[in-house]
C-alpha cells in the first residue's frame, strides 16, 4: 500500500508552524542565536531555540503546571499541524495514531527527578507530579490527552535516524490496519542537561555544532483516505530503508548500499533523484554520507538542501526536520522534473537510513495542505 503525506508542520528556530519554517529555510538565514547564559548555562553559548517558546505561553496555565518543555513542544507541534490542516479532521478519534520520535525523552526531567532523590532529605522526596515526565513516552501521552488522539500511541528512538524510524514504524501501523491516519514526527527540547550530554557524547576534535530544538510532524495516510477527506497529498512515501555498519570507514559503502536498495525497491532510477536532504553532520561521518550519496546516485548532481547549518544539530529530531526541509523547498510552481527527494542519515553508533519521497506537483509551500484551506 502506497502511503501519502497529506499535511506537515514544524516548530523550529524560525518559529511556530509550516509557514515560518518554510520562509526561514528559503531565506537561508540562520536560526541559531546567542543563548541567554543565565537561563541556559552549560557548554554552548549559541543554540537554535524555538523563539520565545514557553509552555504556559503557548498552551495556557491550565493543565500545564507540571508539563515540561519537551511535552509542551510536542503538544504545540501537534496543535500546529491540526490547526493548519483543519483540526476536526483528525482529533477525537480511535482511528488516528501518533508516532513520536525522541532521543531519550527529556533528559532534563529524568536527571532532575533522580537528582531530587539524591539531594532530598529522604531518597523518596521526589515530586510525584513530575514522575511521568521522567518516563520517555510522556510527550506522546500528553499529545494524546491534549488532542484526544485515542489510536495507537507510540514513542520511538534511534539516534539521528529517529525521524525515519518513526516514519517506517507508522507505515507498518497503517499497513497493518491499526489506524487510518498517523501523525508522525520527532521532537527535541533544548535544555542544559541535553547540552551537557551532547557535548560529552561528541568525539574529541569534532567542532561542536550548536544544538537545535523543536521538531516536525507529518500526517500520513493511504491515498484514498486523503482523497475522502479532501486533503491534497504533499508527498508520497516511496521507501524507507536502514542498514548498519561496524567501523566508521564502512559508513560510505553501507549507506550507498542502503540508498541503492531503497531506489531499487521503489523502482526509481538513481538519476531521477532531484533533491537530497542529508543529515550533514560535521567531521568524517558527514563526509562519508556525502560520498555515499554520490556513489549511489552515479553521475547525477541533485540539488542538496541542508537544514543543520541553519537550525543547528536537532539530535533525534534531525531526520524529521530533513523531511520538512524537502517539503518546504519543493519548487513553488510545482514543475518538478520528477519530484523525487532523498533523505539520508548516518548515526555514529553504526546505523544508516534513508527515505525516498515523491513530492506532489502543485504548490506545497504557500497554500494549506487542505484544498479548501
Amino acid at each position, binding site marked *: 500500500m502506497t502511503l501519502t503525506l497529506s499535511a506537515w508542520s514544524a516548530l523550529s528556530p524560525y518559529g511556530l508552524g509550516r509557514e515560518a519554517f518554510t520562509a526561514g529555510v528559503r531565506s537561508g538565514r540562520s536560526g541559531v542565536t546567542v543563548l541567554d547564559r543565565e537561563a541556559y548555562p552549560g557548554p554552548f553559548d549559541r543554540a537554535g531555540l524555538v523563539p520565545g517558546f514557553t509552555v504556559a505561553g503557548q498552551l495556557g496555565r491550565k493543565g500545564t503546571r507540571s508539563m515540561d518543555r519537551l511535552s509542551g513542544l510536542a503538544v504545540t507541534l501537534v496543535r500546529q499541524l491540526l490547526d493548519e490542516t483543519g483540526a476536526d479532521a483528525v482529533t477525537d478519534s480511535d482511528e488516528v495514531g501518533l508516532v513520536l520520535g525522541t532521543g531519550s525523552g527529556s533528559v532534563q526531567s529524568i536527571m532532575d527527578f533522580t537528582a531530587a532523590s539524591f539531594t532530598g532529605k529522604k531518597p523518596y522526596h521526589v515530586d510525584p507530579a513530575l514522575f511521568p515526565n521522567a518516563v520517555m513516552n510522556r510527550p506522546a*501521552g500528553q499529545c494524546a490527552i491534549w488532542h484526544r488522539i485515542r489510536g495507537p500511541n507510540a514513542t520511538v528512538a534511534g539516534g539521528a535516524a529517529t525521524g525515519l524510524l518513526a516514519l517506517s514504524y507508522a507505515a507498518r501501523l497503517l499497513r497493518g490496519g491499526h489506524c487510518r491516519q498517523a501523525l508522525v514526527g520527532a521532537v527535541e527540547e533544548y535544555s542544559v542537561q541535553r547540552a551537557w550530554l551532547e557535548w560529552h557524547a561528541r568525539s574529541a576534535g569534532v567542532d561542536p555544532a550548536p544544538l537545535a530544538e523543536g521538531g516536525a510532524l507529518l500526517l500520513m495516510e493511504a491515498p484514498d483516505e486523503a482523497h475522502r477527506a479532501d486533503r491534497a497529498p504533499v508527498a508520497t512515501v516511496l521507501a524507507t530503508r536502514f542498514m548498519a555498519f561496524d567501523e566508521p570507514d564502512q559508513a560510505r559503502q553501507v549507506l550507498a548500499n542502503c540508498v541503492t536498495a531503497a531506489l531499487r525497491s521503489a523502482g526509481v532510477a538513481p538519476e531521477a533523484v532531484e533533491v537530497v536532504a542529508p543529515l550533514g553532520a560535521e567531521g568524517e561521518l558527514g563526509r562519508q554520507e556525502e560520498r555515499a550519496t554520490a556513489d549511489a546516485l552515479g553521475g547525477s548532481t541533485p540539488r542538496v538542501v541542508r537544514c543543520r547549518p541553519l537550525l543547528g544539530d536537532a539530535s533525534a529530531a534531525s531526520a524529521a526536520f530533513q523531511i520538512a526541509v524537502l517539503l518546504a523547498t519543493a519548487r513553488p510552481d510545482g514543475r518538478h522534473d520528477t519530484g523525487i527527494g532523498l533523505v539520508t542519515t548516518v548515526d555514529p553508533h553504526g546505523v544508516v537510513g534513508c527515505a525516498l519521497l515523491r513530492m506532489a506537483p502543485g504548490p506545497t509551500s504557500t497554500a494549506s495542505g487542505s484544498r479548501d484551506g
Partner: protein
Amino acid sequence: MSRDSRRVVITGLGVVSPIGIGVTRFLTGIRTGRSGVKKITSFDTSGFQHANGCEIDDFVAADWIRRADPDDLGRASQFSAAAARMAVADAGMPAEELRRRRVLVSVGTTDGESRDLDTLTARQLDAGAEKLDGRTVRRSAAGRLSSGVIRELGLTDVEAVTIPTACAAGNYAIGTGFDALRAGEVEAALCGGADAVCRKTFSGFYRIGTIAPVACQPFDRDRKGILTGEGAGMLLMETLESAVGRGAPIYAEVLGYALNCDALHPVAPDLDSLARCIALAHRHAGIKPADVDFISAHGTGTRANDVTETGAISKVFTQPPPTISIKSMIGHTMGAASALAAAACALAIREGFIPPTINHNVTDPQCGIDCVPNEARSADVNIVQNNALAFAGNNAVLILGRYRNGTPA
C-alpha cells in the same frame, strides 16, 4: 506470497530474568512458581523503609556477549543483546544465515539506560556537569538498546528501533515485528524489551506508594503493590514458510495485536479503553473471547491496575478465562515485562500449562478471576492473550496461538 496467507511464528526465545537466564531456567521458574525477590543492591537504598526488588545477580555480560564490547553497552543494552543472541541460538538459526536476511530489531523499554543516567546524575552532583564520562554518556541513549543488538550479532541489512513506550513497550515491539513480517518487509524479526533496575523508577514508584514492602501479590485482597524488576525478553520471529523451510521447531504463532490510548490520565488506567483494546486485538487476530485459554495479565499488583484490568476483562468476556500475572514471580520488569510475558505465553503453549500467580492468599472479590494461585496448572493451551498497560494510557494486547498445520488457529 500474499499478505493474508503470510503467517508469523515464534521460533526462538531469549530470556534474561530474575528467575533465570536462558529459556530452560525461565521455564523451570514459571512452572515451579519461583520468586525472584531479594533486597535491592544495585543502588544505595538507605533512607527507604523497604527496598525489595527483582534484580538479576547472576548476569555476567561477558558470558553472553561475544562480538560487542560489553563496556560499550549499558546494563539494559547488555540484557537485550544477550537475550537476542540467545533467541537466535534457540531458533537454531546460524548467525551467518540471519546476516543474510533482511531483519527488523525492535526493543521496547521504559527507562532506556536508566542505570547509566543514575550514575551520570550522581557524578554531576558530585563533580559537576563538565566531569561526566563520555563513554557512559554515549551508551546512555535509548537507541542503543536496539542498535546494541545489531552490533552484537553483526547484522547489516537491518532496521533497529527502540520503542520507549514504557511498560507496554514489549508488546509494541513484538507487534511491529509481526506487521513487518506479515507485509513481507523483512525476513526475520528480533523483538522484545529490556530494562534495568534503577533508582529513578524505584524512588518514583515508592513516592506514589506503589512499591510493595515484601512481595508482589497480583489480584490478592492484601496486595501491596509492585516490585521493580529487570531483564530482557527477545523473540525471534519469522514467517511460517521460513520456519517450515528450515525445519525449525515452532513455539507459537502470532495471531495479532492491538494498540490504543486512553488519552485521559497521565498514569491511571481506564477500564473502557482497555476493554476496547482487548476487543480490537481479538478482531485483529480473528478470534472470539471464548477462544482464549488464559490471559497473561499486566497484573502489577496495585489496586488501580488489578481492579481496572479485571474489570475490562469482565467487560469483554462473559466468562473470563484463567488470568495470571508472572509479575508475582519476576516483579515488574518495565519495558521487558510484556516481552518476558510473551515468552512465558509461548512456553505455556508449547509445554501445555498455565503459569501460576504466586504469593497468593485470598483473591480480591473485586477482581473475581481465577488467577491460578501459587501452582502451575496443566492445560491444553491453544490461544493466549498477553496484556500490557503503560503510563500515558498506552494499552497493547498481543494474541498468540498454538501453531497448527493448515488453516490458522
